[in-house]
């Protein structure tokens, strides 16, 4: 952080940003000042009446869905005389309402600006409409409410009650959540819109981070002075803590990045600019303090980039210690380094550097200059700029700009967007169960345009980065912390979703192969071939390798998985690097280029069960039966080897495919494949084998063939288990049909002969003998 500051004549009580470079501040000298950071000007907006001592200021939320509003026009100002004032940008008091006895200690708009809540010294919480009409009194208590915050979905309100924190839903019948949070009076709370975390600061000189269920995630040690202000950064990755002579910048997990000790008295209020790069603080001695976040670092392979100043970056190539300095015309807002490219957005332009050449960046103008998110893939990168989302190629060409009604693009964050080379997934901002999928090249929704809907709120999702578009898969983590895998493009098949893990905290796909890394149950876990669930579910546990992380007391966060290196951030803030085996990546490479002999050689060389299991899954997925046979044999799955052998001997391609589907447990698809190929006997036979009697009979009756076969097998089954026929349909059909095993055998022989003939005719496979 670097600091600079200016001054008021008396204690500054509150600050609020309008744009990224303009700040309003209110002070006990009754003045409202406007600070323009670009020109360095400070001007008096208005001098309030002498009896108004402002306490809290909150700007009306900027972008309200529907109409585009670049700058908010009014703000709510609360004062010691129990009034709420709605003040316009020019400083005119549009409306004043008497709302509390004693001072109004806090006033906050909800996320979409439809309601305002005020908290007073009299212990009341009141909700107001946008125009300043009283809607309801939400709560009433014996002690003053010092601070209040809205939940991300604006359906609940968090407020302080002495040493306790209370979350109260707006719906009158719902239960409130209340817990003792601190050993001193709680002075400030804030609730992050992005990550649903709560931070609180109190007179016991501690700040704590909570989740929305009231569980403590972090508790700081006691500092010298009470914590007077806390504030989440807009991206939810950082929060700032203010105290007497102290400004602290902390990570969302609680550990602190940096501390500054300015001589400014207590920091009474903090406010982040919308782009999250600047922080303003209201100081007890009449100063307004501006802080800029610097020293951010990005690492990728052998490059290390540091934001040294607001407008310059230093690039260090670790291999040869070469230094490059990148200078920008404006302040750097966001940057991202991955896949061999550095993308930097300033307040006006976007710079794209290649790691091969730091001298000539590609520069293009931004449409709004309010970039809140950058995500990269091998070929494209996306920018969320203001209320729009753009996908660019590294040549600077605008590829597409997907749109979806109802999704507020400006609210997107790294957890609600995922980009791959061909597909993009966006989580709905209103209903977190819904995920919209888009084609990157056209910006159109995938398939029939229906979004993917999970049964529960999705916390985080990620698309895999490699392989062909048809095999694109999405891993998602829901509110129960279960990890699921689903196919994005499902041609003619029902959308299947498989659970592959539970107790998952964070996850990341590998950048060069479809390996998935996650922290599961405090252990670093790598799914070497997650797609195996669609082929052979039982193999999944065998394709997982875990790294024992006994040194992790609490779950770390996976930051990146580049090459063979997994980078995780522990709860105490230290970065830990973990090396993973390079073999799975190699195996993926061989499998995708169908070099099965090489894959086998690799597995034999590595002698690793996990690797063999992966190979079994991969070869099965691409119907490479002979490789699969070897792989399954290596992991000792004799039953599967036998089944594969049986499949190899099948006469036609269609039945082979059907049995491969059956192998993966897709009975329905296997049946339809067979019926399409007019192999009705096979379809009936698989149902008989599965003891799926009703369907077998139904098919037989429908196609008027092999009814006796079904009946014969049914009788045999009943006899073996010494049961009586109870199924009405079987009773009905068994009356007119005589069961003759010899005839049936002959018929089956005929079916096989017919199929063989067909196969020979279409010369798909050379003639194979049947052993059955």
């Amino acid at each position, binding site marked *: 952080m670097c600091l600079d500051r200016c001054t008021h004549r008396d204690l500054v009580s509150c600050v609020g940003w309008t744009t990224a470079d303009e700040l309003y501040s209110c002070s006990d000298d009754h003045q409202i000042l406007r600070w323009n950071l670009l020109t360095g000007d400070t001007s008096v907006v208005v001098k309030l009446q002498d009896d108004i001592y402002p306490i809290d200021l909150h700007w009306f939320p900027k972008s309200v869905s529907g109409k585009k509003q670049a700058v908010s026009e009014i703000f709510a100002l609360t004062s010691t005389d129990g009034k709420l004032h709605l003040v316009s940008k020019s400083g005119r008091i549009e409306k004043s309402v008497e709302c509390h006895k004693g001072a109004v200690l806090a006033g906050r708009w909800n996320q979409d600006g439809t309601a305002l809540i005020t908290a007073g010294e009299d212990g009341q919480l009141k909700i107001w409409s946008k125009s300043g009409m009283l809607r309801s009194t939400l709560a009433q208590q014996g002690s003053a409410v010092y601070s209040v915050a809205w939940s991300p979905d604006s359906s609940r309100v968090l407020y302080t009650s002495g040493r306790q924190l209370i979350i109260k839903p707006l719906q009158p019948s719902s239960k409130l959540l209340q817990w003792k949070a601190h050993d001193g009076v709680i002075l400030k709370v804030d609730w992050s819109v992005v990550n649903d975390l709560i931070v609180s600061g109190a007179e016991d000189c501690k700040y704590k981070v909570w989740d929305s269920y009231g569980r403590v995630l972090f508790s700081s040690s006691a500092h*010298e002075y009470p914590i007077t202000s806390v504030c989440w950064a807009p991206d939810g990755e950082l929060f700032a803590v203010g105290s007497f*002579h*102290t400004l602290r910048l902390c990570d969302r997990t609680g*550990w*602190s990045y*940096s*501390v500054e*000790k300015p001589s400014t008295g207590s920091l009474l209020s903090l406010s982040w600019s919308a782009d999250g790069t600047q922080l303003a603080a209201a100081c007890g001695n009449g100063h307004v303090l501006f802080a800029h976040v610097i020293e951010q670092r990005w690492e990728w392979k052998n490059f290390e980039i540091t934001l040294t100043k607001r407008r310059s970056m230093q690039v260090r190539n670790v291999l040869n210690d070469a230094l490059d300095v990148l200078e920008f015309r404006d302040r750097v807002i966001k940057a991202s380094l991955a896949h061999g490219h550095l993308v930097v957005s300033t307040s006006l332009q976007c710079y794209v550097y290649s790691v091969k050449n730091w001298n000539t960046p590609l520069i293009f103008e931004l449409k709004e200059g309010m970039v809140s998110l950058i995500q990269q893939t091998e070929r494209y990168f996306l920018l969320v700029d203001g209320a729009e989302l753009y996908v660019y190629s590294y040549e600077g060409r605008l590829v597409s700009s997907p749109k979806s009604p109802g999704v507020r693009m400006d609210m997107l964050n790294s957890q609600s967007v995922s980009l791959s080379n061909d597909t993009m997934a966006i989580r709905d901002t209103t209903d977190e169960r819904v995920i919209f999928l888009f084609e990157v090249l056209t910006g159109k929704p995938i398939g029939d345009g229906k979004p993917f809907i999970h049964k529960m709120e999705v916390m985080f999702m990620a698309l895999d980065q490699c392989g062909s578009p048809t095999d694109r898969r999405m891993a998602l983590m829901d509110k129960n912390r279960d990890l699921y895998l689903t196919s994005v493009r499902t041609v003619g098949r029902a959308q299947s979703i498989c659970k592959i893990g539970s107790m998952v905290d964070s996850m990341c796909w590998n950048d060069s192969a479809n390996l998935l890394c996650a922290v599961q149950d405090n252990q670093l876990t790598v799914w070497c071939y997650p797609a195996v669930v669609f082929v052979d579910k039982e193999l999944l546990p065998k394709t997982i390798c875990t790294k024992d992380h006994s040194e992790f007391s609490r779950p770390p966060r996976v930051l990146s998985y580049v090459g063979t*290196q997994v980078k995780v951030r*522990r709860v*105490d*803030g*230290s*970065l*830990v*690097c*973990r*090396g993973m085996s*390079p073999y799975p990546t190699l195996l993926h490479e061989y499998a995708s280029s169908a070099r099965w002999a090489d894959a086998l050689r690799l597995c034999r*060389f590595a002698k690793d069960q996990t690797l063999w299991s992966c190979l079994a899954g991969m070869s099965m997925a691409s119907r490479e039966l002979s490789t699969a046979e070897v792989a399954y044999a290596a992991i000792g799955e004799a039953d599967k080897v036998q089944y594969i052998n049986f499949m190899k001997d099948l006469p036609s391609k269609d039945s082979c495919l059907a049995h491969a589907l059956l192998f993966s447990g897709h009975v329905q698809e296997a049946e339809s494949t067979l019926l399409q190929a007019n192999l009705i006997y096979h379809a009936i036979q698989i149902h008989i084998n599965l003891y799926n009697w009703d369907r077998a009979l139904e098919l037989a009756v429908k196609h008027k063939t092999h009814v006796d076969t079904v009946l014969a097998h049914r009788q045999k089954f009943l006899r073996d288990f010494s049961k009586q026929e109870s199924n009405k349909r079987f009773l009905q059909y068994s009356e007119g049909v005589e069961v003759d095993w010899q005839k049936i055998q002959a018929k089956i022989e005929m079916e096989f002969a017919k199929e063989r003939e067909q196969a020979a005719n279409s010369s798909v496979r050379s003639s194979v003998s049947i052993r059955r």
Partner: protein
Amino acid sequence: MAKDPLAEAELHFDELNKLRILEPDVSQKTTELKEECEDFVDKIGQFQKIVSGLIELVDELAKEAETEKMKAIGARNLLKSAEKQREAQQQQLQALIAEKKMQLERYRIEYEALQKVEAEQNEFIDQFILQK
């Protein structure tokens, strides 16, 4: 001696044979007294001048003493506050040091992790070379 009628009338002649009401000695003494008185007044005046000068001087001294005293008090206070300031500064520096220490600890852990990775990679390379 026969009574001088003039003396009886309380009139006298002086040496210049001027008629006088006062006796010549008395008159002479009176004059003397007057002269002496003038002398005295003069002397008193002088004395006053000297004394006022002295008072002025003492006042000045007092003033100077006062300022010196204030200075001394100021200096003493400054010393005290400097002590406090140092303490505050020390506290601040301590806080910053604690911060840096934590950062160092984080770097240490990162370094150890990287060392581990290096060892693993070396081992892998060795294994690879041996097997081939």
